[in-house]
């Protein structure tokens, strides 16, 4: 419903503001100082003038306002200039990393493809394994397939990604020597040979992410499907004499997909954050590794930008999940609004 969608979007804006503020306030308490690297020979009055020029003396709310303007207006303008060749942003100041003295967003855009490829592919493969496995296991509860799938899912759920990564390296890199343990990001795909190399080095990190997500999502899919199969209209469909296939795929799946869609949408951004660990294990220089190095180097603008980006992804996924719910659930279309927070 358009009204409902608009209301949801309107609620999202203060959420974004609040989350940005929480992160900003947390970082404001940090001991780091952009003036720390300046030579000690600078006289105190010049130092004070420089602090003023950098806006460090302004009250925190003013600084927050400046930062909001930079992040949500200036940076997108620069991005547009870069993509479309326009000159909207002009000479306006950008968010600069203390580490590289280059605009933060340029580095982020440089690192984004690695993360998207490895993490996105891993999540996609995980979902493609999990959905059929969960549906089939729920349709035949206590069967051999169900028991094996449940066991594997419980095991996969309990294996942290930093351990599966290490295990895979021990078996497939150290033991068998099939795949490299370190992701070489300088590799340029120019021929069939380098393409093969690229695919080979993606196998291990992608599998780690795929396995973990397949385990989590299939557990959820199975539970949702089992609940859906206990509904009254399923009994009716069976009593009508429909085939089990038609009952499961035609009637139960639609109801079962509702909660699963939410989980899928909400899981996607968490995967980005969770990939911090996988990227660290395989030395993929994506966004997660960028965050870790920025934290270790006390590079506050970079840390702040990345954390806010992760937060924005989560908020956007929340919004998408909610809108999808509105489209999929006929009860919401009919105007029977669900109470927030009661699943």
């Amino acid at each position, binding site marked *: 419903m358009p009204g409902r969608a608009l209301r949801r979007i309107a609620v999202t804006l203060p959420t974004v503001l609040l989350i940005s503020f929480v992160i900003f306030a947390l970082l404001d308490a940090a001991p780091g100082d952009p003036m720390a690297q300046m030579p000690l020979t600078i006289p105190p009055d010049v130092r004070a003038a420089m602090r003023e020029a950098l806006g460090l003396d302004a009250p925190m709310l003013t600084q927050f306002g400046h930062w909001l303007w930079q992040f949500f207006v200036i940076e997108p303008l620069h991005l547009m200039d870069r993509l479309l060749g326009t000159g909207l942003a002009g000479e306006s100041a950008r968010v600069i990393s203390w580490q590289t003295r280059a605009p933060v967003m340029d580095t982020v855009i440089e690192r984004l493809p690695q993360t998207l490829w490895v993490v996105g592919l891993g999540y996609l493969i995980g979902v493609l394994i999990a959905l059929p496995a969960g549906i089939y296991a729920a349709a035949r509860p206590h069967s051999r397939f169900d028991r094996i799938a449940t066991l594997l899912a419980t095991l996969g759920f309990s294996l942290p990604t930093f351990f599966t990564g290490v295990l895979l390296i021990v078996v497939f890199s*150290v033991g068998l020597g099939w795949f490299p343990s370190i992701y070489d990001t300088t590799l340029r795909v120019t021929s069939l040979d380098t393409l093969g190399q690229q695919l080979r080095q993606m196998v291990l990190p992608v599998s780690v992410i795929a396995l973990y997500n397949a385990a989590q999502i299939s557990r959820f899919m199975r539970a949702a499907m089992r609940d859906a199969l206990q509904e009254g209209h399923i009994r009716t469909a069976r009593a009508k004499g429909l085939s089990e296939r038609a009952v499961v795929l035609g009637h139960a799946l639609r109801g079962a997909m509702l909660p699963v869609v939410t989980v899928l949408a909400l899981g996607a951004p968490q995967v980005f954050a969770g990939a911090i660990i996988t990227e660290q294990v395989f030395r993929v220089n994506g966004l997660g590794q960028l965050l870790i190095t920025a934290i270790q180097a006390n590079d506050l603008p970079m840390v702040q930008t990345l954390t806010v980006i992760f937060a924005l992804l989560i908020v956007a996924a929340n919004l998408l999940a909610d809108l999808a719910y509105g489209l999929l659930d006929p009860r919401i279309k009919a105007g029977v609004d669900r109470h927030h927070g009661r699943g």
Partner: protein
Amino acid sequence: MAVAEPRALPAAPGRARALRRLLAARGVATGGALLAALLLGALFGPLLWGQDPAHIDLTARNLGASPAHPLGTDQLGRDLLARLMAGARVSLAVGLSATGLALLIGTGVGLLAGMVRWLDAPLMRLTDLCLALPLLPLLLLMMMLFRAPLAALTGPEGGMFLLMVAAIGLTSWMQIARLLRGEVLRLQALEFTRAARALGVPPARLVARHILPNALSPILVSAAICLAQAILTESALSFLGLGFPPDFPTWGRLLLEAIDHLQTNPGRALWPGGAITATVLGVTLLADGLTEALDPRRRTRVP
């Protein structure tokens, strides 16, 4: 809850039945045994083994398994079995304390939201907001920002323990709060709480006598999951090098150190990683069994 009983007077028979069903389930037995073994190992292992996990012996570096060192030694010649058991204490202590904190906050927020009508909307918005925070990046951030000040206050290890418990506890109460609020709302609509209210039972007694005992099982299940997550988070932070100081053994730290020696001693990574996995597996099996045994809809189905 017990639908079949004509009078819902004594709770004991139903509870005994639930307990019997619980123990009959294979998953619960396996999970319980795993956890019991780990807890016993953490509590009594160091007393029985008696080697100092911090004792450096440079003549016995990077050894494989031998009677003197069943799991071998690390790059400084420290006994890995002793370090694994010391790590178990730290990981379990952090996990249990953080879960305790999360339970405290989550129960408080959930109860208030469920019982006090005008607090419901703001508290649930707060919960939703916290659920939308990027937790791992924020945890990393907290580690970076507050490590030095706290270490100056209480020493590097104590400060890190407090910080770890606070950070994990403060970021994992939301699920418990949402769940408990739902339970409170459901229970308040039931006859017996309405009867108690009509008899003039004050809200505090209503919560203590009628609501909390009946909401106990879902809270326990989510606390178990919270424990598993807390141990995973602590290991992840240590694994990323942002946890306890380097010479302080935790499972995540041991795994991180093992990575540099994967080529020469791949077995070294298996023990700490296996210990983390066994803990989480035990807790998950236990929680799954609890849910299955206590869910009234599934009661008839459990063999």
